[in-house]
């Protein structure tokens, strides 16, 4: 295994004071903490930084590491602890429930298995929770829906951290909303030792619909209407998630105006939302001279200035 230079990881000199190392850790932890940094490799970087701090923050552990560093400096790529090595400072490690590198475990324990100094103590730690994005179509929120989930869980593959692909069938309950999380018990990363696995969290993301938008439990649909339909009023057939309905557009309607149809929205925990039909007045193409003449007549008779509100300046 490769020797880990914790000083280099934290960007400090080997003779740095603990306060300086602490400052470096804080800066890097803030930068790479996976709860603050969504980048893919942030978690791995944070683990490295946290592991380095875990070792260097305590004088005794740091002294042990320094000793090994002097020894391991000659064998960077193929490091093995000296024969008979056993740490006197292993113990209560804080980060990631003991999820440390093989290098760390070979020196300080905190894992389980056969080590150079004998059998390490068994380490029980619950598996990590895993969160994945779960795309859900609007139509699938109307009733309980069964869906297949494919995801990867981290797993040790001999000496290195790999992943296992997993497939699950889950039920997405009716009425889920965008951004909501649902839990699948015991389907996260496996636990260490005798500890149970973590949970899988599904972060619900509603897939954009070709016709509908979502506002809470209300559905919005943009209804294109011709200028004369808006002016004179009409009835149009409007799609909902459960078939078409007839919608009356009053005369003198405006673009952007919302018409509410109660109970035709999404299923919510406290009842159904509404459908909001948003009118959008669209212009027809100028297909003939005759139509153009009719528009001209209208402009002369209507005497309408849409920019009257701008004033004369």
């Amino acid at each position: 295994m490769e020797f880990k230079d914790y000083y280099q990881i934290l960007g400090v000199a080997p003779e740095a004071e603990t306060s300086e190392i602490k400052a470096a850790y804080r800066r890097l932890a803030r930068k790479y903490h996976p709860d603050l940094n969504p980048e893919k490799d942030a978690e791995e970087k944070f683990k490295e930084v946290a592991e380095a701090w875990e070792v260097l923050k305590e004088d005794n552990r740091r002294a042990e590491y320094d000793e090994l560093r002097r020894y391991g400096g000659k064998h960077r790529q193929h490091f093995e602890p000296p024969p008979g090595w056993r740490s006197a400072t292993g113990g209560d490690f804080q980060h990631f429930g003991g999820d440390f590198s093989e290098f760390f475990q070979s020196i300080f324990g905190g894992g389980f298995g056969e080590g150079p100094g004998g059998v390490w103590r068994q380490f029980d730690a619950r598996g990590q929770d895993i969160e994945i994005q779960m795309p859900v179509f609007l139509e699938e929120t109307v009733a309980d829906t069964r869906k297949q989930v494919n995801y990867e869980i981290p797993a040790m593959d001999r000496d290195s951290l790999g992943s296992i692909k997993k497939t699950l069938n889950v039920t997405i309950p009716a009425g889920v909303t965008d951004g909501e999380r649902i839990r699948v018990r015991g389907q996260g990363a496996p636990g260490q030792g005798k500890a149970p696995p973590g949970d899988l969290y599904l972060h619900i993301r509603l897939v954009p619909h070709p016709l509908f938008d979502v506002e809470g439990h209300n559905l919005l649909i943009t209804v294109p209407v011709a200028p004369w339909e808006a002016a004179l009023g009409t009835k149009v057939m409007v799609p909902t998630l459960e078939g078409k309905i007839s919608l009356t557009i009053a005369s003198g309607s405006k673009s952007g105006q919302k018409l509410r149809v109660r109970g035709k929205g999404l299923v919510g925990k406290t009842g159904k939302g509404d459908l909001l039909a948003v009118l959008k007045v669209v212009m027809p193409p100028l297909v003939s001279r005759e139509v153009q003449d009719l528009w001209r007549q209208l402009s002369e008779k209507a005497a309408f200035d849409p920019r009257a509100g701008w004033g004369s300046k």
Partner: protein
Amino acid sequence: MATTVLRIAVSELCEQDELSHSLLLEMVQYDIARPVAGSSIEDWVFDATTAHWLKKALRLRRDLELDWVAVAMLIDLLRERERLDQENQQLRHRLGRFLEDDGQ
């Protein structure tokens, strides 16, 4: 078929994360989490979304050595950012429908 659950009881939450009642009470007092049911701490039930933020708060407090006030503010801001990102995406999508060419 794996069982999906929308809620998590306090006993399970505490067992999972080695979380004490007093720590949980602090998080509720700082408004990091709000139970959806239960009148006493032993009966509290949280929804899965709150459990997600609660676990995040625990990790941030431990790994960044923050106090609860800082954690509460951070969680507030992270939640708000998630909500605004979501809203921004939805509004952009809606605006797109209105701005697209009239030729459809």
